[in-house]
């Protein structure tokens, strides 16, 4: 039952690799508007562990983005996965009361 979800998770990882290799680095819609209307300079750069999807220390930009992307996917996947960790309790109830 969960196999297809693992499949989608793996697909997300593959897509992160593809994105790292081929994604356009041109400014996005909002950045472009900010540039052409000259309010771009109001942006205050924020600090984060993987700013702009790059890992410090990996100099190759594609590889750096791939690694950052994979970290992001793992974070998101296990956030939701960890909420469902009560599996054994569900199993216990099912076995105890013969539900389903």
């Amino acid at each position, binding site marked *: 039952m969960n196999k297809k979800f693992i499949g989608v998770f793996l697909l997300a990882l593959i897509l992160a690799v593809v994105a790292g290799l081929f994604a356009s680095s041109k400014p996005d819609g909002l950045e472009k508007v900010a540039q052409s209307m000259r309010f771009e300079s109001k942006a205050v750069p924020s600090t984060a562990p993987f700013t702009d999807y790059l890992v410090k220390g990996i100099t190759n930009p594609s590889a750096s983005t791939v690694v950052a992307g994979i970290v992001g996917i793992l974070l998101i996947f296990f956030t939701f996965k960890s909420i469902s960790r009560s599996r054994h309790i569900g199993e216990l109830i099912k076995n*105890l009361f013969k539900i389903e």
Partner: protein
Amino acid sequence: MHIPNGFLDPKTSAGAAFAAAGVLGYCLSKVRQALSHAVPEAALVTAGNIATNITKRSKKIVSSMAENHLMKMAAVASLIFSAQMFNFPIDNGTSGHILGGIVAAIILGPFSGTLAISAILFYQSFFFADGGLTVLGANIFNMAVIGTFASYYIYYAINRLIKSKVGYFIGVFIASFFSVLLASVFCALELSISGTIPLSKVLPAMASIHARIGLAEAFLTILVLEFLSSINIEREGKVINE
């Protein structure tokens, strides 16, 4: 369309954050309600006190249906995060990426979908500096509340109006187009309320770029939904939707 720090003033950021928090709270309570009903109630009837204890300890998320739904959220949110990294060129010098709001809202239901997109925005802001921390509320408001939650009901209304496979496709197409467009309109509104740039200038510029990104979003949304349905990941049933 992730707004960086500095583009919005504190009152606009705070206002958007309050509005977003209200909707997220509502979504959270709906999802919790939907996920905690199936098994515990049945178990309570048969088991009395013992089941009550088990339910309390497991914070009410106990059914295999709930576990399945959370795995689905984990998988779909991962996929959308990854897809958002993929910037495609829109024209010379501009790029866009999929938002995924309608994919999330249809596959996970509007409440879980909104939470999933919000979680993605949260991580993008905290770990990747994609969208400023002080404007996280505004980004969640634009892309999760408007681009996911509100836009889902465009799809819902069209689907009610035209009850066929064609209606479904039209609904998905129009809703995903407007999810991006409306999110950009709200982004423009926030920028002008903050006094960053007059609305008369920023609204046409934001809308025209994001209409093009929205068109790409519409085609990609249909593609992704068809792909997910081909591997038996279907639209969420009634329990999570209403």
